[in-house]
């Protein structure tokens, strides 16, 4: 399977499976070695990176919610130069393309990062993260600056501004839109008694973003592929996004609870079918449980199954 998940053109990204992790969930390189078969994923999206090093947030970082989690990390990272230096060799060894998530801070920052990244062949594409509450003019300038890079550019949309920003940004040089970053929220840390702000993850995010994908797919020119991200916790969640017009999906925090779920979704959408032997023990068939060797066979997507063609060919 070969799926072009960015706008066709000079720089374009082709993956073998339309499934990848969301930025911030799988680390910078191979943290999930031994837990996930990277070979089955379409790409690795790295944790967010900035040019200068960022420190971790102070105080509570994670608050469990009913069927979800609030997370506020402060996006700690040692800065772009060190991220490249420390991970370059690992990236070269990974069997899949690497998409670097670049925090969208300013035009100057984006230009500087772009010129550094142009020299890094191990990075196949860049995903630009726009901050919450960003103005349209700032977003346009950022995307235009980042698009000067000699790599395909994915743009990850902020949640609340998605309906408003996605249509104009689709025209502004992005090669694909990622819908969306997780919404910000506030919850009480029961241990410390304080209210804490952060991003909200969980299955209930999916119906919100699924509607965005469906509506915006109808509004935005077909040349711009949409990559869906938000609340994917099962193969069916991923298929729903593909049905709504996404060309690929990003799985976020579900991976932490069930690392094999990411691989399982990738197998499902990638056309591998994990067959259960009639009398197999749980361990022997369920890719989520222990040392599993699921039976793999390349198969055409089932008749009524997802349409795996890139969005623009619809």
């Amino acid at each position: 399977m070969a799926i072009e998940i960015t706008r066709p053109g000079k720089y374009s990204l082709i993956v073998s499976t339309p499934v990848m992790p969301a930025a911030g969930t799988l680390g910078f390189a191979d943290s999930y070695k031994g837990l996930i078969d990277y070979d089955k994923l379409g790409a690795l999206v790295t944790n967010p990176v900035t040019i200068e090093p960022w420190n971790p947030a102070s105080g509570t970082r994670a608050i469990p919610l009913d069927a979800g989690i609030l997370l506020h990390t402060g996006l700690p990272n040692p800065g772009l130069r060190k991220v490249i230096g420390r991970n370059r060799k690992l990236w070269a060894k990974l069997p899949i393309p690497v998409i670097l998530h670049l925090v969208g801070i300013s035009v100057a920052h984006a230009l500087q990062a772009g010129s550094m990244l142009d020299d890094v062949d191990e990075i196949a594409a860049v995903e630009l993260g726009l901050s919450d509450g960003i103005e349209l003019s700032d977003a346009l300038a950022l995307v235009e600056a980042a698009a000067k890079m000699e790599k395909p550019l994915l743009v990850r949309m902020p949640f609340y501004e998605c309906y408003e920003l996605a249509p104009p940004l689709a025209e502004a040089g992005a090669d694909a839109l990622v819908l969306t970053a997780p919404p910000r929220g506030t919850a009480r840390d029961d241990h410390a008694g304080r209210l804490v702000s952060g991003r909200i993850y969980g299955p209930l995010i999916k119906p919100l973003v699924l509607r965005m994908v469906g509506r915006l797919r109808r509004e935005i020119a077909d040349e711009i592929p949409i990559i869906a991200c938000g609340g994917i916790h099962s193969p069916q969640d991923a298929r729903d996004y593909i049905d709504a017009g996404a060309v690929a999906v990003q799985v976020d925090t579900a991976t932490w609870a069930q690392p094999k779920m990411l691989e399982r979704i990738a197998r499902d959408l990638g056309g591998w079918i994990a067959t259960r032997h009639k009398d197999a023990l749980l361990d022997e068939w369920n890719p989520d449980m222990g040392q599993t060797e699921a039976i793999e066979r390349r198969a055409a997507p089932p008749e009524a199954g997802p349409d795996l063609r890139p969005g623009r060919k619809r």
Partner: protein
Amino acid sequence: MKESQAYIERITRVNRDFQRLDLAVDKSLSSLRAGQALLVRRIDKDYEAEQWDPYLRELWFPVDIHASNILVIEQPARSHFTPGQLLSIIGPVGQPFRFRQKLRSILLIAYHTTPAALLMMLAPLLEREVGITLVLMGTARDYETGHLPGEIEIIQADDDLSWSDMVMTLGWADQVFVAVGPGDELEHLGDIMRVIRRRRNNIPANYVFGVLQRRLPCGVGACHACMLNLRGTQKLQCVDGPAFDLTTLRLN
């Protein structure tokens, strides 16, 4: 690091408040040592019926190991478990505690948490004839200790985090391990460092360790939610912890 299945083989009530679970685990966990933990998720036989509430894996510090594949877990008596129940496990999480080679006496402190994270070391240290003192502080003072080995000296700290022969206890100890619960854990470690500093004026490296039990979203070094500021560097509780030398950890 890998994901494996375990099941609850036996459940024993050890006192009014706690029960212990005998967990039959994968061979890959038989080398688990004191300090290392498990990230646990209760699973159904029917995988498809999976629920997402609770969402995060629980962090379990085993308190003992038997026959190479039975890990013993201490849990509140009110938590509902059944023998035969299946668990999905990611582990071992973190690094074993590093003890001095010539360890004669060790001081353990549990502050606003059960001492579970400190109990796995008891059997091996008692075998090495190390003297063990366990100080219970804050809400940990409610912890009933009847089921712990009789050789251990147990002390209830006062409200001001001190106890009667504190200076002596601190002087005798070759190492100190302080377990704190999640939520204000760095403040709590700061409280304890202040109390210790008042009793002992220069604290050597590798003498007093904080044992952190923050919630770990991923447990494998990916999400960076458990990152700590150390002097001049940053470390992850899930990869480098749970124990950090309190003279290097930034406590504000």
